[in-house]
């Protein structure tokens, strides 16, 4: 795939779901014959009408039945070397089908790539049934599954393309819609489980994933004006967690901050807390995300603001905690 200033603008304009459909899935469909793609009447939602036209033999549509989607995808994965991708709303492919994920995918180590579209608070105005503050943390509980979420549309394409070579159950949350913020403008090597340091700084290190990576980068610029050196890490893979990079920054930073578009319980903040708690000595941790109350209905931005997830709010919270630590 091409990664330069212009192409990343195109991917951003398309958003993660369309970019994945138009570039990653098209590339996989062209290169490989040995995989299936299953949908729960979600071909249009996943922006894959064109994929269906180009590769009809790979497509299985099970109807609006997410539990069947996961079960059938697990079965199809057993019939093909390249496994099976399954696309539908993040909320329904995980929360509704959790038992199928657990029994058919996770325990049986099936080569199924579940791709949840419109994750996080993307579908803010449709209400809690379409929000997914919990799903990353819930799927992370299951054994054998790789859990990840890209920071921008470029990374979404890289993630899906790279996923073909990993013969393991996987859950990928896509959340950036059209005009998705751009994090990467130059090419880089993507590897599952290997976090990316996007900004060096060892006073505070912000570990973020998904769309919060961009907010963290903006917050870090605000920290500059306060004379605080703020690093930013893109922890795109929640499981397996890159503990090597955490260990490195836990030794030198005065504060580690996690930022996620989801619950602070069980997700990225929970994962980092679990890891740090096992260390003999560890750096203080501030976890930012959806706290334990239900936000009011509204746009994604509106929901983020209620949880203090805008870059300005993130910077304020970090400054406040830094003040307490002095």
């Amino acid at each position: 795939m091409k990664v330069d200033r212009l192409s990343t603008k195109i991917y951003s304009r398309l958003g993660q779901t369309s970019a994945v459909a138009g570039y990653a899935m098209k590339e996989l469909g062209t290169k490989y014959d040995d995989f299936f793609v299953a949908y729960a009447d979600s071909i249009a939602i996943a922006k894959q009408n064109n994929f269906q036209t180009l590769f009809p033999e790979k497509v299985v549509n099970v109807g609006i039945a997410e539990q069947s989607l996961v079960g059938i995808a697990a079965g199809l994965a057993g019939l093909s070397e390249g496994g099976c991708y399954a696309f539908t709303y993040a909320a329904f492919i995980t929360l509704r089908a959790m038992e199928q994920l657990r029994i058919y995918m996770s325990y049986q180590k099936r080569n199924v790539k579940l791709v949840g579209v419109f994750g996080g608070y993307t579908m803010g105005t449709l209400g809690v049934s379409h929000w997914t503050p919990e799903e990353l943390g819930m799927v992370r509980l299951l054994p054998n599954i790789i859990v990840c979420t890209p920071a921008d549309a470029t990374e979404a394409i890289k993630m899906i393309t790279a996923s073909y070579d990993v013969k393991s159950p996987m859950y990928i949350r896509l959340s950036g819609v059209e005009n998705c913020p751009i994090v990467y403008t130059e090419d880089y090597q993507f590897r599952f489980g290997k976090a990316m340091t996007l900004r060096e700084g060892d006073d505070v290190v912000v570990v973020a994933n998904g769309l919060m990576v961009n907010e963290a980068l903006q917050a870090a610029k605000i920290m500059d004006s306060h004379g605080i050196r703020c690093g930013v890490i893109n922890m795109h893979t929640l499981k397996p967690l890159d503990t090597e990079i955490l260990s490195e920054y836990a030794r030198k930073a005065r504060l580690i901050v996690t930022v996620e578009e989801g619950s602070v319980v069980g997700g990225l903040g929970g994962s980092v807390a679990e890891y740090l708690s096992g260390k003999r000595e560890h750096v203080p941790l501030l976890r930012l995300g959806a706290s334990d109350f239900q936000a009011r209905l509204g746009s994604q931005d509106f929901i983020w603001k209620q949880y203090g997830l805008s870059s300005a709010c993130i910077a304020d919270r970090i400054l406040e905690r830094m003040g307490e630590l002095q």
Partner: protein
Amino acid sequence: MATYEEYLKVFCETLEIEKESALGATPKTVENWDSIKQMALVVTLEDTFDIELEPDDIMKLNSFEAGLEVLKKYGVISVS
């Protein structure tokens, strides 16, 4: 001010077609011209000609000639 030739180059490179096929080209005549290529064309035109297309103009961008008219509207192309 850009020229017709520059538009022709951007149009053909983005849709991956030969210059001889550009005149009269529409999504029906260009196999590659799907919604993804449409957005690539929009972003490439915006980037090349330093403009921001309004949604109505994006919708109008459905042929080689229509693209030319859109660029004329923004006053960024001279056609002799």
